[in-house]
């Protein structure tokens, strides 16, 4: 692989990794507050279809992203009511969210006389910075050639990392995720913190979905996330609930996803089905290998993850 091809590979990896960055950093915020939301895939799909519908209808991409984020947050709100308010099983509630989101997005995307899948976007998100920067050798395409949502994901990751480690609110969120009873005793409203972080995670998943339709594919196709939301949850585990590590892991997975297509371009004699399975095989292998190490998920996971908190029950 020559330099040009390598740069192109990196650029593709960042493109494919960006929805993973949004979704996994958002999920980190949710999980750090002690709520496990497995519904990322569903929130992404609903975010993707809503964003596309709004962008196609209004012609404004940013309105689409906003709508996508709101749709993701709305779905996360359901999970919040169930898992925080009603102390429901968070795993099954998350799975329900995926089923609902997948059905809802297909319904909204395929229904009507003029289905969304056949309507075209004026122009998807494009390069944000001027060519003068983007055309610089090496650093240009890797750092300056992206669209707004890629830079947004960098800002979001940095903000999430600083928020969790450097701010009082972030500390409170972590306290709620580690020991809600102690946090409660310290005067933190546990459930409010959890609702806020669940909604934030949902909004981020909605933006991840918006990125799929408004930037990466530029169109709506049924079920276009194809498991990205689940891989994002795996990334949360790999990254040990740290935003910056999640960013790197997301690009690694983006690279591996696009690796398949690159192999195909290089005439590596692997059938398409094998290449398509590659990201899932790698996620599975990484999950098993990493869970068996000393830095096991149980050592780094928020201690109260997926456990409802109820003061009266104490």
């Amino acid at each position, binding site marked *: 692989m020559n330099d040009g091809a390598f740069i192109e590979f990196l650029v593709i990896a960042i493109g494919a990794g960006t929805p993973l960055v949004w979704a996994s950093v958002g999920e980190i915020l949710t999980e750090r507050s002690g709520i496990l939301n497995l519904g990322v895939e569903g929130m992404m799909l609903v975010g993707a279809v809503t964003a596309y519908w709004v962008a196609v209808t209004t012609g404004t991409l940013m309105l689409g992203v906003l709508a996508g984020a709101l749709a993701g947050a709305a779905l996360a709100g359901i999970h919040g009511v169930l898992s925080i308010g009603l102390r429901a099983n968070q795993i*099954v509630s998350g799975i329900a969210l995926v*089923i609902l989101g997948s059905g809802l997005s297909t319904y909204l995307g395929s229904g009507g006389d003029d289905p969304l899948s056949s309507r075209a976007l004026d122009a998807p998100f494009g390069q944000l910075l001027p060519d003068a920067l983007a055309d610089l050798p090496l650093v240009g395409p890797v750092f300056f050639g992206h669209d707004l949502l890629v830079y947004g994901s960098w800002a979001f990751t940095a903000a999430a990392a600083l928020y969790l480690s450097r701010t009082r609110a972030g500390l409170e969120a972590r306290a709620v995720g580690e020991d809600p009873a102690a946090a409660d005793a310290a005067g933190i*409203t546990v459930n409010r913190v959890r609702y806020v972080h669940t909604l934030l995670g949902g909004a981020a998943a909605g933006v991840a979905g918006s990125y799929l339709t408004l930037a990466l594919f530029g169109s709506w196709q049924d079920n276009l996330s194809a498991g990205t939301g689940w891989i994002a949850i795996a990334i949360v585990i790999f990254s040990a609930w740290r935003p910056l590590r999640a960013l790197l892991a997301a690009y690694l997975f983006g690279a591996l996803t696009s690796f398949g297509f690159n192999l195909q371009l290089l005439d590596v004699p692997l059938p398409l089905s094998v290449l398509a399975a590659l990201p899932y095989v790698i996620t599975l292998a990484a999950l098993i290998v990493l869970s068996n190490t000393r830095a096991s998920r149980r050592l780094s996971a928020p201690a109260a993850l997926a456990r409802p908190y109820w003061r009266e029950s104490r």
Partner: protein
Amino acid sequence: MAVDTRAASPRRRRFLLEERPAPSVALSAAIAVASVVAALFFGAVLLLVTGEDPLAAYEALIDESLGSPVAVGLTLVQTTPLILTGLAAAVAYRMRLWTIGAEGQLIAGAIVAAGVALKLGETSSVVVISLSFLGGMVGGILWALIPALARAYARTDEVISTLMLNFIALSLVDYLIVDTVSLWRDHTNLSQPSGALLPESVLLPSLFEDANVGILLAVLCAVAMAVFLRKTVWGRDLAVAGDSPKAARYAGIDARRTIVGVMLLSGALAGLAGAVQVTNVTFALDKAALSPGLGIGYAGIVVAALARLDPLAVVPVAFLVAALLNAGPGLDLVGVAPAVVVVLQGLILLMVVGGQFFLSYRIRRPLAGDEGR
């Protein structure tokens, strides 16, 4: 959602909650019915908002799934694999093993079952059917093996590992049908990749309209599971281990063995569902037709949850969900996108998950004069 979240706030003691000991069967059933009704209500809201007529849609839904003997027969055909994947989810969830791998295990089971049937060809039906069904279970077990061992020995999160294998199973079908000229591929027409037609000797005897005796087999599995869980030592060990891992350890129950055993049993049931589907519904390895709509594996989770993980309750609930699945394509006739059926399943599952609260807790108001809502 019309749920009063004030009950969740620890700061306002407007409600007193107390744990309900064991909910009665009547209450469980009432809450299951209420979950479905609430899901249908929210589904109707969605239909209204998107400019459809909910009554017409629901009428078509009932018509398509239960309106005629033919429709009932087709619903029974759908019920068979749903009972099996419902049992697969129920047995695992009882043990708090949150597998969502039934979809992949179903496909793996279908692959092996179809392979066995194709290899054996037109011979004695008894031999072909029993060996291919056995093969289906083996396929499901093989597909569950990696997540089971990883969960037991490396504590690998089973939710994601099983899900990844669902995607890998779909790719495996593509590999066998599209990318290679395998045993499973139709060799007579290579220009259009499709699965080879299975021999007729693998067909189960017919029972009622389009339904075959597979439904009896599935019901038998449900009964066997109920007996197994209630009457055998290992089954009761499972109940203990599911309720409290700590108690299980003191009782000398090997947690690892239990995890592997339950996940493989779950895989075998899902694999059997795949065998029934491929031999008696799709007649060839075809990934889209094998698991229509949401996917029979995922729908099994809805079935198990609505049945409150009770093997016997899985049977009627599977019939209900099958009716829903079966009606999907028919909704097209009244101009409603069939995906609304998937939406309804998601809503049902959400309502069931939320309804669990009312089974576990009793809500009381501490003050008589509380104006409430």
